[in-house]
């Protein structure tokens, strides 16, 4: 399934709002392997870039091309937001929701929900209302709900930004397992420690422009641009 979507090619892609360019022009080529981390300081345009790729931010110039038709590509993607969005339903109903939308039978959807709840450690909470879960549990639920349709690609917009270290590690473990199962992940973060731990590739973005892309190891060991070097050193970059 991964091969159907990728490569993803952005050519002079940009998005503007009220005449102000938020991101771009961006030229980017991503293949279908591993976990790609979009890095950059707050306000760099990480979220907008992810939304641009996903198709929920309006493209005001250039192009975003998948290996298949854009609508078909969208069908095989999911998006996890920084602030977890949970439906005002039980944990089980949250998990079955995307499957039911796709016409999966109630029984099969329920059994998939139980499997995923167990996988992310939410089994004891299945019948509880999602709204009463902690922030970390809600984010795990959002990730499980994104993964339950077995998408080829999942975008994650700073999924651990407001969580403590333990919840962060648990979520990283879920993501690494998803990666091992063949799901392509594109995750944005400004947390360098997290990026070092989980990234296979890095896209470094600053001021709405992609400054550097490449394998994580070479990015962290030998950044090519002065902006990336400054960011990795912990300097304030603008």
């Amino acid at each position: 399934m991964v091969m159907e979507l990728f490569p993803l090619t952005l050519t002079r892609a940009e998005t503007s709002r009220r005449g102000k360019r938020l991101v771009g022009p961006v030229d980017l080529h991503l293949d279908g392997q591993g976990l790609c981390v979009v890095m950059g300081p707050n306000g760099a345009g990480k979220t907008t870039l992810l939304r641009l790729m996903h198709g929920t931010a309006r493209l005001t110039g250039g192009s975003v091309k998948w290996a298949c038709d854009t609508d078909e590509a969208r069908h095989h993607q999911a998006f996890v937001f920084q602030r977890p969005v949970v439906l005002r339903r039980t944990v089980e109903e949250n998990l079955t929701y995307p499957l039911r939308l796709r016409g999966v039978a109630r029984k099969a959807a329920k059994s998939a929900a139980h499997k995923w709840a167990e996988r992310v450690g939410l089994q004891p909470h299945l019948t509880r209302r999602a709204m009463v879960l902690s922030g970390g549990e809600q984010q795990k639920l959002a990730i499980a709900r994104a993964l339950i349709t077995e998408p080829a690609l999942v975008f994650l917009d700073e999924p651990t930004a407001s969580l403590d270290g333990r919840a962060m590690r648990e979520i990283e473990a879920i993501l690494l397992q998803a990666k091992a199962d063949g799901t392509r992940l594109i995750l944005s973060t400004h947390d360098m420690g997290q990026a070092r731990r989980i990234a296979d590739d890095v896209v470094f973005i600053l001021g709405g422009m992609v400054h550097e892309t490449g394998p994580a190891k070479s990015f962290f060991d030998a950044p090519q641009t002065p902006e990336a070097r400054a960011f990795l050193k912990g300097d304030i970059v603008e």
Partner: protein
Amino acid sequence: MLNALMGLPPVVVGLIVYIFLSRSGPFGALGLLFTPTAMIIAQVIIIVPLIASIAHQSLRELWAEYHDLLISMNVTQMQKMRTLLWDARRALLTAALAGFGRGIGEVGAIMIVGGNIDNATRVLTTAIALETGKGEFALALALGFILIALALGVNLLIHWIGQTERDSRW
């Protein structure tokens, strides 16, 4: 607009409906004045803005909450509506009950368009008004207690639903 309509004085609504339904009015030929249908028309005009306003507010809040997720899931318009209506069902029920609560206590408009005719268009509120006018305070009070019990029952129900609504959110 909805909020403005919510503030319409019921007596004025009754007067306008009366004018429209009276013999010389545009709908006079329908012969609806002093019938339960006329009372229903007046009640609908009074209650709908209230129900619509509460429903609109709760659906708007829910849409703000779900917007990103549903857009990202690429749901169809129909799926979107079903999701919002289902997840806002408690708030919508509260809106309906609030409308019922307002309707059951209404007297001015339905007195004008219904005429308070015995066995035809007399309801609890108009009967209370009539009995009080006649000096039959015992009967008026008894009817009043029934009305209070009904209104109280509805309000308790609204309160209970509101409670479960909050529980579902927090």
